[in-house]
């Protein structure tokens, strides 16, 4: 059930609120989107709401990375141990990595530029959009959220910030990924030994292949939650102002001068 039925279909809409998530077009810096694709193919696409492309690229990168031991090779390279890096990389798969990786960067950049234009057109067209929806799977409605709260929850655990602003699909992926990466990398155990001051033991238990996934996932979660909360706030104000202009500016209202009581 939607609270809005469109008599004449509009060409572009600024946003949509459904129980499965909030989708909103807004201006983005395409360079930042491309850089998130550099961090992890798929993240750039999640930022611009191309979830299916994002999923495909994400799982592809994940798979290739695992079979070629790319993270481990990165670890050796950053430590200057080039011989070991060469040894561990699987030459059967590594060439497959390059074209898709570059495609992810290029495609997310290009789509971000396109979406910026579409957003401008949608804003100028000023079409009304669904701001409240309810169905057997749940409900969702437009409301203002605090960016710093989203930031803090994402800091505590990736995906919580996305849940706060109802970006369900992104939240689900981040939640699963975080759990899989944390469990496989034994990061929690490593932190435990670091707290105890046993750094040698920590280095032994933490898995280098898996733990290198963590920084990109963690910081992507914060960035995505924070930036989308800011944009949601702007959308809320804009939509409410538009509603007031449409419904609460009667022609017969006359302003009268008088003393303040």
């Amino acid at each position: 059930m939607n609270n809005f039925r469109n008599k004449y279909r509009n060409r572009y809409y600024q946003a949509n609120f459904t129980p499965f998530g909030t989708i909103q077009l807004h201006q983005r810096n395409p360079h930042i989107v491309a850089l998130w694709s550099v961090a992890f193919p798929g993240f750039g696409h999640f930022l611009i709401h191309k979830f299916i492309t994002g999923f495909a690229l994400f799982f592809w990168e994940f798979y290739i990375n695992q079979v070629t031991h790319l993270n481990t090779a990165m670890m050796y390279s950053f430590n200057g141990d080039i011989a070991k890096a060469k040894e561990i990389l699987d030459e059967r798969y590594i060439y497959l990595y390059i074209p898709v990786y570059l495609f992810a960067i290029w495609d997310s950049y290009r789509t971000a530029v396109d979406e910026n234009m579409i957003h401008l057109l949608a804003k100028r067209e000023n079409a009304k959009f669904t701001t409240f929806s309810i169905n057997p799977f749940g409900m969702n409605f437009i409301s203002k959220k605090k960016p710093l709260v989203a930031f803090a929850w994402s800091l505590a655990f990736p995906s919580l910030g996305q849940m706060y602003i109802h970006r369900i699909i992104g939240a689900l992926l981040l939640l699963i990924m975080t759990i899989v990466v944390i469990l496989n990398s034994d990061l929690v155990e490593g932190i435990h030994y670091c707290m105890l001051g046993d750094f040698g033991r920590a280095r032994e238990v933490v898995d280098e292949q898996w733990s290198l996934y963590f920084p990109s996932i963690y910081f992507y979660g914060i960035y995505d939650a924070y930036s989308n909360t800011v944009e949601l706030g702007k959308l809320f104000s804009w939509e409410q102002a538009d509603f007031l202009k449409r419904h609460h500016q009667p022609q017969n209202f006359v302003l009268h001068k008088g003393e303040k009581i």
Partner: protein
Amino acid sequence: MGLQIFSTFQHSHYLELAISELKEYKIEDIYAVPLDNRKLDSKMFDTMHAMDGTSLVDTALILAMMCGTVGVARGFVLDWGPVFWGLIGSASGFAAGFAFDVIKTAIKRKKIKTGKTRLGEIIIIVQCKNEQAELVEQTLWRNMALGVAVTSMQSLERNQAVLADKN
């Protein structure tokens, strides 16, 4: 004789609650004026009620991610291990990016001198009878109005007096 009650609000669900509540009391003469936002706010950090689109964490998080990854990798060789070096890398990357954005924004803001933080985002004018004034005022205050002013409609009285004279 009636009154006109002016009030300012920020964008929130309270505003719509106030309007719908007044309508339940059969007070229908409501006029809303949403104000345009100032393009550049002097506040550095985004809050729930003031967001200017200037983000200070874009570069910071990218750098945190990059330095964190390198830090974790270096940690496998260095003394403190991957967890602490990852954290150190992330923190220093974030700090560097944040400092970069703060300086960049500060320079940008210096060019456009702005005043204090934004307060009212919407002006709501309610016209009601004298005896309803208290009810309307309380409703507005309860729903987070930033400021409320009750004014008498003296210009209307004068106009009516002039009309009566003519007749």
